[in-house]
């Protein structure tokens, strides 16, 4: 398979942003029909690289060869015309257009300027069916789809082009297990038709499963090219990415007994989202919630935090019942939440990193209403060191950070202050292996200091490896609760999938 | 000044009065002039008249500053005028009360101020006040309506009113004169809409008024410029059962009255010719002369123009005063 002709070749590509050399001489070689994986730490330049390929950025130096000719796309349209389609890391959909309109945005089938709606929706349905999601109505507003659904639409858009190369920038970050399998099925389907795929992910197991060859980036340079995806030892890959070896992923489980009960949730419910949820978190305990995308975990977390008003049930923190629908009450009671969608829910993109890190705590550093910038910067620097933020300069606007580094800022916010109970929703989404290990260690350390943690993650190993106790949710209900040691990945997946199968049966 | 263009083709109201003793050239005077930015025929005519009248004198240097959008802007503009040391200032203020302080200041600095049309509350703030009679306009309009309707023996008439910009005090005075006079005859205004001195707002308000009063006997429109729109609305609604009285006395209105082919039967004057007179008198003040027909050696302190009623009968006399 890898003996196919080379379709894409990059030589010494350089791209600078004000103050940053994002790409500093990249080499890359992609063959027809292969899945070429890009690996690299957060901020290594992966997204920048693919934006250069798809005509969003113009390289400052270097040479790109595409299908044997020199390639200098002036804009995204030109790259698409040349047969390169891209699924970007940040969802690039228009909320108030329908699924079909998003899929065909920019190249709508039309007659005299009128959109051929029938044709477009038939075509979209075909693509969606091919993607295994024929149930999504093409006429539905994208706004009403959950993140996973939006990712499917992004893919549909890429497939709506007649592409010879499809670039996927962390497509699996918002997908659950079954969806990832589905994605891989599609990728195999594509490659068997000779289409090349560039695949970016921080999950090594995915790269092993779907990848053919791997190129590793570090600080904007290619540190290793064309490694065999299945056989290169993990230690090798990680050390080329990070320049060091990472011995373990999950820190040792703590042995200390859990303390007093911090959080008690009783019969919590919201119509159409989740029902009758009861759980508790003790001080020093990490409780993980596993479940499929759409099982209502984010909604549950947001409701506990007061960002949504509970329709039934109560949330009690250290014996005191919280006023429903009041974030202020939750924060005063010592709760903190790192929400799921960093851009829309967590970050002030134009503001400096340090102000984002201290967003929930700056009042604490203030005296008489006057802020203390020096203290804030110092604290933010501490967090930046802890989480290996790069670049390390905390005065830079968050907007200029790579996706994974933005995620670190979101999580870092709640490592400050005297949070008693931390609600983490997908805290490692898009975070590289190195930083991920650091993050796990930080979470464990917090627990060791007596903080309670309620963790939602779509990565079952993460839940099992990090949590003391695991809750499994399905379709808005709690279906299982057990100590992490009593569960293994297959059991959890079975529990979770059973639900989805059932749901599918009903839909049919 | 930069806006010379197009002044002289407008039929400005000037008094060339060659046989007047005061017409003889005298001491050189610099007259500073300020009026609000014109977005309306009447104000435009004020500025044109002033300029044209000044042009007839060889001994007058005329300096004008435009007053911009509001009283604050006018105050700022006047400051720059004062710094150029004119002999007399002729001023049509945005609002007499708001610019009273300026009048005081200038008078104290020894510059006589001629207030045009919008009175300063403080008598020390001006040397001469020349203005139209807003209240009298309402009185004249009402008087005309009363005689017409009484002649037709209408007992409980439906009377409409389309006022100008409601936030201006002059509009209030006009409406008050109108209502007071009607009340003396036992009449009242059935519906009053306030337009904005523009034809399009006149049309919109008139359309509303006509809809609110399906049958009407008379309507007074404060301003002939907005009257273009009012008349348009009336013809669009196909209504002609009532009489209409205008205000100010534009050339178009006077012609229409003369032609007598529309509901417009009369208009009550509020003539921008006062600007021409103001310049003449300012010159005399600057030269320390009096009005030759009067016994007094100096120009008097107050002059209020009468609001006359122009009808088909006397329209021919007023045509030359139409603006």
């Amino acid at each position, binding site marked *: 398979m890898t003996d196919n002709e080379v379709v894409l070749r990059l030589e010494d590509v350089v791209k600078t942003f004000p103050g940053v050399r994002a790409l500093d001489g990249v080499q890359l070689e992609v063959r027809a029909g292969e899945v070429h994986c890009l690996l690299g730490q957060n901020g290594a330049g992966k997204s920048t690289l693919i934006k250069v390929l798809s005509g969003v950025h113009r390289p400052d130096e270097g040479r790109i060869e595409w299908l044997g000719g020199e390639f200098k796309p002036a804009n*995204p*349209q030109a790259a*698409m015309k040349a047969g390169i389609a891209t699924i970007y890391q940040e969802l690039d*959909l*228009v909320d*108030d*257009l329908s699924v079909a309109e998003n899929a065909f*945005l*920019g190249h*709508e089938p*039309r007659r005299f300027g*009128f*959109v051929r709606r029938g044709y477009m929706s038939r075509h979209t349905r075909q693509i969606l069916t091919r993607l295994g999601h024929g149930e*999504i109505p093409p006429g*539905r*507003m994208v*706004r*009403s*789809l959950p993140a996973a*659904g939006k990712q499917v639409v992004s893919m549909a858009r890429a497939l709506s082009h007649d592409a010879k190369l499809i670039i996927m920038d962390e497509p699996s970050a918002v997908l659950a297990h079954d969806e990832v399998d589905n994605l891989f099925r599609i990728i195999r389907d594509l490659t068997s038709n000779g289409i090349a795929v560039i695949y970016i992910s921080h999950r090594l197991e995915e790269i092993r499963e779907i990848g053919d060859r791997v190129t590793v980036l570090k600080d904007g340079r290619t540190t290793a090219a064309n490694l065999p995806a299945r056989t290169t030892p993990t230690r090798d890959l990680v050390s080329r990415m990070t320049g060091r070896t990472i011995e373990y992923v999950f820190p040792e489980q703590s042995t200390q007994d859990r303390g007093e009960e911090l959080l008690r949730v009783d019969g919590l419910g919201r119509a159409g989202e989740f*029902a009758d949820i009861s759980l508790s978190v003790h001080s020093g305990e990490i409780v993980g919630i596993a479940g499929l995308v*759409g099982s209502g975990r984010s909604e549950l977390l947001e409701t506990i935090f007061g960002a949504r008003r509970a329709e039934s049930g109560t949330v009690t923190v250290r014996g005191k019942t919280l006023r429903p629908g009041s974030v202020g009450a939750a924060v005063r009671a010592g709760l903190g939440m790192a929400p799921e969608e960093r851009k829309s829910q967590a970050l002030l993109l134009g503001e400096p990193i340090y102000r984002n890190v201290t967003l929930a705590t700056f009042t604490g550093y203030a005296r008489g209403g006057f802020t203390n910038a020096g203290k804030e910067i110092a604290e933010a620097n501490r967090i930046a060191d802890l989480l290996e933020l790069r670049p390390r300069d905390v005065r830079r606007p968050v907007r200029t950070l790579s996706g994974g580094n933005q995620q670190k800022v979101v999580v870092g916010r709640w490592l400050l202050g005297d949070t008693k109970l931390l609600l983490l929703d997908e805290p490692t989404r898009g975070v590289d292996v190195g930083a991920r290990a650091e993050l796990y260690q930080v979470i464990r350390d917090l627990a060791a200091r007596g903080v309670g943690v309620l963790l939602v993650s779509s990565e079952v190993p993460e839940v099992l490896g990090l949590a*003391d106790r695991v809750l499994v949710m*399905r*379709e*808005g209900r709690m*279906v299982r*609760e*057990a*100590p992490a040691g*009593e569960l293994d990945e297959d059991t959890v997946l079975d*529990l979770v999938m*059973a*639900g989805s199968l059932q*749901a*599918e049966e*009903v*839909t049919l | 000044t930069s806006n010379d263009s*197009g002044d002289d083709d407008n039929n400005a109201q000037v008094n060339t009065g060659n046989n007047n003793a005061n017409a003889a050239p005298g001491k050189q005077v610099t007259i500073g002039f300020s009026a609000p930015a*014109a*977005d*309306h*025929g009447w104000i*435009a005519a004020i500025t044109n008249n002033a300029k044209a009248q000044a042009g007839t004198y060889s001994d007058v240097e005329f300096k004008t500053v435009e007053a911009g959008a509001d009283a604050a802007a006018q105050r700022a503009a006047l400051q720059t005028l004062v710094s150029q040391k004119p002999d007399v200032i002729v001023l049509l203020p945005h609002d007499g009360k708001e610019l009273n302080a300026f009048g005081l200041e200038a008078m104290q600095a020894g510059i006589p101020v001629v207030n045009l049309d919008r009175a300063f509350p403080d008598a020390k703030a001006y040397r001469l006040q020349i203005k139209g009679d807003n209240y009298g306009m309402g009185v004249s309009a009402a008087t005309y309506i009363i005689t017409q309707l009484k002649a037709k023996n209408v007992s409980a008439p439906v009377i409409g009113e389309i006022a100008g910009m409601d936030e201006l005090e002059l509009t209030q005075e006009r409406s008050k004169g109108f209502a007071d006079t009607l009340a003396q005859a036992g009449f009242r205004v*059935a*519906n009053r809409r306030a337009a904005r001195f*523009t*034809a*399009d707002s006149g049309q*919109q*308000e008139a*359309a509303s008024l006509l*809809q609110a009063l*399906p049958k009407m006997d008379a309507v007074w429109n404060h301003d002939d*410029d907005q009257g*273009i*729109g009012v008349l*348009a609305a009336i*013809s*669009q609604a196909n209504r002609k059962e009532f009489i209409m009285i205008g205000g100010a006395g534009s050339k178009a209105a006077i012609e229409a009255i003369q032609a007598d082919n529309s509901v417009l039967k009369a208009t009550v004057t509020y003539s921008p010719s006062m600007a021409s007179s103001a310049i003449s008198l300012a010159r005399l003040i600057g030269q320390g002369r009096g009005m030759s027909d009067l016994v007094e050696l100096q120009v008097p302190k107050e002059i209020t123009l009468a609001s006359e009623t122009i009808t088909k009968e006397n329209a021919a006399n007023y045509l030359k005063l139409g603006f």
Partner: protein
Amino acid sequence: MTTTQTAAPPAPEKPAEKRSWWRDDASEPLRRNLALVGVLILLVIIGIATRPDLYGDSTWVRNNIFTILELASVIGVVTVGMTFVIIGGGIDLSVGAIVALAGVWSTTVATQSYGAGGMIFCAVAVGIGVGVVNGILIAYGRLVAFIATLAMLVAARGLAAQISGKQTQVSTNTFINDIAAGDLLGIPLLVYILAAVVAAGWVLLNRTTFGRRTVAVGGNVEAARLAGINVKRHTLLLYALSGLCCGIAAIMLTSQANSAQAAMANLYELDAIAAAIIGGTLLSGGRGTIIGSLLGVIVFATITNLFAINNLSTEVQNMVKGGIIVAAVLVQQFRYKSLSQLFNRT
């Protein structure tokens, strides 16, 4: 450490129906529009209650509907253009000034000598021309739309004053003047024009690539750019479209007033923006409907009409108007959900 093991409870009945892939807010615009219709009905009921004498007369009622629609027609046409601009992520503060400039330009003696065709051509050309200048400044000069169109407002009114010599220019063209007076099958011509512009706007927004791209540009510029849409050109076209609507409105207004002047169409920008927003257009772009904007315009016109037939004085009018606007929006925001919450709380 205790291990609680809950047996999987029976799956909630028909979960798929309750919890589908989507949250059901697709009907949001429809609901808003229905609420606006409700507000309209309310206003009419107030009208009937306060002036039963007038509302008793069916000819009067018929005429009144047309009066309201005619009153709404000019600003309605302007609002259609404004709705596109706002959906596309911009704002056009110069609409009133464009209407004035186009109106004044097309009623100069020179232009009137070309007859009705010449006047219409002139108004439309001036409208589009100014719109294109706006568009160039915003799309290619990268000026903030608010500032660029504010500058244009000032400049265009100044030019209009210059051209007209600050005089009210009377239109002597009977064809133009008759538009506002004429009707067809008992319905005023201006209402037809409004209907045509609204229909064209609806089709353009909902059925053409131009409309769909407008939503994309306003809703997510970055996504639009990545999808290969020429955002700059599209932005330019949006302002040109708004200018075109202003040109049409200028002819309508000139016809209504039989004249044009530099101060005409005063504060139309505020009226048009307010109507669009009350109609559900998001000021930040990316969402809005033509029908909503039309309803917004009609609501405002009906309020004005209500005041006129009740002979409210200007100051009372204004105070009440503020209250009605707030109430109208509150009615619109009224949700079935809040109602059910209200009951649940007891």
